[in-house]
């Protein structure tokens, strides 16, 4: 089948998509967007988190056919058009929240979603928001730091305009 949808603001088309293919597979293997990761492909790790119509979802759990005509935003679409890193991306690098980085794309989308809704999240709120994203390297301490740092730098109004 053919699937047509918007990815990071651009209309894209994938041909010869099999019934069983996930959105994650189509992004990674058919559209040249491997930023979203494939750590489990069973909805347990969050490494594949993307926005689907502005709601974070596990791309590995979304059948490709389901995104027909809809809008997807991946880690590759977080930075602005001017190539400036988003404050969340910037904070992850600055805080040392990136080691191997395999969890990072999914965490960035989840954290991005948190701080645009709540730019003063408590620690408990950060933990709750990121509970679906596994990281095996950092023990999460520096991820906490990164989200606190990002929240401090984000003003909700500028985020909404994106």
């Amino acid at each position, binding site marked *: 089948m053919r699937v047509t949808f918007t990815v990071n603001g651009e209309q894209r088309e994938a041909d010869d998509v*099999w019934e*069983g*293919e996930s959105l994650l597979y189509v992004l*990674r*293997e058919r559209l*040249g*967007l*491997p*930023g*979203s*990761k*494939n*750590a*489990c*492909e*069973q909805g*347990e*790790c969050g*490494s594949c988190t993307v926005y689907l119509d502005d709601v974070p979802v596990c791309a590995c759990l979304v059948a490709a056919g389901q995104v027909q005509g809809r809008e997807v935003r*991946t*880690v*590759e679409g*977080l*930075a602005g058009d001017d190539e400036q*890193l988003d404050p969340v*991306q*910037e904070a*992850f*690098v*600055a805080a*040392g929240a*990136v*080691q*191997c*980085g*395999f*969890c*990072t*794309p999914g965490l*960035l989308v989840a954290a991005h979603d948190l701080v645009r809704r709540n730019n003063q999240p408590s*620690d*408990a709120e*950060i*933990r*709750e928001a*990121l*509970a*679906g*994203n*596994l*990281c*095996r*390297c*950092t*023990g*999460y*301490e*520096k*991820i*906490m730091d990164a989200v606190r740092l990002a929240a401090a730098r984000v003003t909700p109004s500028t985020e909404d305009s994106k």
Partner: protein
Amino acid sequence: MTQRTSARDSVRELSTAVTGGIGESPRRPDGTLKVRGEFAYSSDLWHEDMLWGATLRSPHPHARILSIDLTEALRTPGVYAVLTHEDVPGENIYGLEHPDQPVLAVDRVRYQGESVALVAADHPETARRAVARIKVEYAELPPVTDMVAAAKGEGPPLHPDGNVVRHLKIRRGDPEATADVMVVGEYEIGMQDQAFLGPESGLAVPAEDGGVDLYVATQWLHVDQKQVANALGLPLEKVRLTLAGVGGAFGGREDLSMQVHACMLALHTGKPVKMVYNREESFFGHVHRHPAKLYYEHGATKDGRLVYVRAKIYLDGGAYTSSTPAVVANAATLGVGPYRVDNVAVDCWGVYTNNPPCGAMRGFGAVQAAFGYESQMDKLAERLGMDPVEIRVHNAIAEGDTMPTGQVIDSPAPVAELMRRLRRLPMPPENREEPVDIRDMPGGVSNTTHGEGVVRGVGYAVGIKNICFSEGFDDYSTARLRVQTVGGEPAALVHTAAAEVGQGLVTVKQQVVRSELGIERVTVAPMDTTVGNGGSTSASRQTYVTGGAVRKVCQTVRQRIFELAARKLGHGPDGLELAGGKVVDASGVVLADLVDVLGDDVVEETEVYRHRPTYRVDSETGQGNAHVQYGFAAHRAIVDVDTELGLVKVVQLDCVQDVGKAMNPQAVVGQIHGGSAQGLGLAVMEEIQVVDGKVRNPSFTDYLIPTILDMPPMTVDVLELADPHAPYGLRGVGEPPTISSTPAIVAAIRAATGNALPRVPVRPEHITGT
């Protein structure tokens, strides 16, 4: 980092004329790519016209293969190749140091998940379906699953020399010594998985010269190259490896997974072949942490001084050798922990069984032993009415002391200091704030308690780990460095084969060059086999050994630059220094810009660095200088336990570690956080459940690793007591924090519940006794 202790004078004063050098925490060179989603991990690779490989694995832990029928698989449209052991071009055998594992099984399988056949097809799903159509007829054999029985020589041999991989004895002092008080304990450790997030994967591209280029996530390019070339029947130079992005490793990528398989398929089809395991296959695709059984007897004087330790330690290596001999060495030589003991008798066995193969995982050998000896120290403290910190301080090993192997510790060993500092770190408030936030309770948002039945406990533990490869292994790394003028600026390119797996070695290499040469612009070349062996990214060794190699090549390059300068400036090469892109004399007077000295010249050198030699220990007595360096870390855990439901919430986990020199403080602390988290996982949740040789939980649904809700806040206190034998005085960082975290948490749960808890991971039923 809350504390610094100054390095010894013997460490060279480092240049401060450049930013981003040693001791700072500059940004990772791969950080921006990683947050943009543009860093190419091994599973992200793509090639025009590429095929997908898939693996057929044995469903049985032990069986004879009677026949393999490929007909249906070959008939599947879209399939390009179906290969078995008959298609292995070279020797059908591999293994880290002791090759004993077939690339593809011949007539017998020894574990569930052993590779039997391969498929290449134009779509991953086609490849998987074709794999399902291969018909293998097996005759099942009874599996050997009991490690203690295997050590005793019971059961059918799985390999020609029987089922004992290694039996190592440590004998010191009087093995029959007696003491005022004695405590005994039996302990057990479940099988832990590395659970790195990036699945085993890579891309093999056939080359025109009949060779192959392999892009892969691994911990050690050159040892892979050697094994792959041997299995393909190709000379080394025809098997070229490049490190693809690695999504974590923790030991699980030290052995081969898909490397030979992808190359076989690529050479057979003449097309690039990509292989990516899914999570379930990953659980079968790499070795795990050795499960262990430990029997300890500790004797002490009435005032709490250790008199003797006797132990028997069994480690289940599973079906093939992998790193088992080294795991045995660590568990045995470090088996009494960081304590002074005059009389020691330790027997340690590593065995073959039909359980999943076990090999390297962060802290191997030392992790298992520490759960045993630290549980014993607490038992002894309790028996004597002593404080757990006090008994450890009382018996702590120190510089100048002798290990049970006879090796004298010749660099700082601040074990007592670690314990004292740990005790001084702030505690969380004792009284909970009202109203209770259930997210802080055991069970969390499952809303199982608001504090009823919840008891707090505090536990301490300390551990010891050997850093770098031990027992006479020729352990070295190679670094190549090129310095030239690029765009009017001095620039350096540093090239090694040492695998970056997330830990931040790429940053450390840049930092070393900046500090040594005063050149700010340092590029890290891709890691590949066109430069000499970098050794393994394991044993906490890369900053030490590859860092040492980069420092050494910097010194050589610096000398070459001074010779150039001498020629151009008419100044002798002695007494020159490099700082901030300038050549200066001893008093700091600028003599020339480095760019002018370099002109159009390119200075390139390659150096090999070795740490000081080690020696094999005597197999009957365990005596010998087996280790290069020891690393120490200590943890304090504070837990809340719901004693009715058996649920545990780790409230706080604090760590004090000596790192000799914090090369990159942010990365050092990151290693301590991550290592502690893996120790927490082993303490309360992580276990591959194996029943009759079969894995019951190969998924992240059933094999749980700590989430952000499971991890507590940590206070980390880093000491820097220089090791005079090591580059910059540094001490390997990665493994020690994984060792003491587990026993500290279990000690805290014991303190809260009064239960003996002789096994990890601790499960709710161990707490409730139901």
